[in-house]
């Protein structure tokens, strides 16, 4: 890893309250987006900040430019067909911007 790192970040596309869909993709490489959430729709709860991209860091690259990371809220009963809990139960997952598309 280089000693001096050129720091840069991708601009945030989403704001809290925005509806998004997680990409339904299965690329090779080091992917952090859980399999079970791919293709599902949720709502942006917050922008957590911008962080070096783990898909790049895993291959000894810098991870720059940093990718915005969001906490996205999903309804449990939309993720798990057999979900027996309350209708308004949610699951929140942190997902990088390049894995989200606007709805």
């Amino acid at each position, binding site marked *: 890893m280089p000693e001096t790192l050129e720091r840069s970040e991708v601009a945030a596309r989403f704001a809290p309250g925005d509806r998004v869909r997680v990409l339904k993709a299965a690329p090779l490489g080091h992917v952090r987006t859980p399999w079970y959430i791919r293709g599902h729709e949720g709502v942006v709860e917050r922008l957590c900040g911008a962080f070096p991209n*783990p898909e790049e860091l895993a291959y*000894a690259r810098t991870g720059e430019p940093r990718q915005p990371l969001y906490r996205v809220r999903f309804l449990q009963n939309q993720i798990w067909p057999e979900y027996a809990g309350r209708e308004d139960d949610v699951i929140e997952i942190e997902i990088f911007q390049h894995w989200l598309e606007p709805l």
Partner: protein
Amino acid sequence: MDNDSTEAGRSYHDMGGLPAGRVVPEEHDYAAWERRVDAMMMLLTGTSGGKRRMSVDELRKNIESIAPETYDRMDYYERWVTSLTQTMLQRGHITTDELTRKMAEVASRKQDAGNA
């Protein structure tokens, strides 16, 4: 998801939502070798200062590349030491030949100690 040959399927480690038994939490003390593996990771990632020789993402990537049957058999720090070693090979800090020789040396030392 389509089974396109250009796409990867679900990785073995990515098991969220798959049927599984109950999670039984248990406390245990760490063995000396486990503490050493943990310390080695801190040193190699530069967490406690010093040069950064790898990232935690490389640790994860190489843990997730362990063959499923081996992954299941190994405990937590066995996966870590396997992954640290793989990362050092990939980064060119050690070679397979050096590793093989060293492991043989350690094994014979252990045998000598056993015979003593």
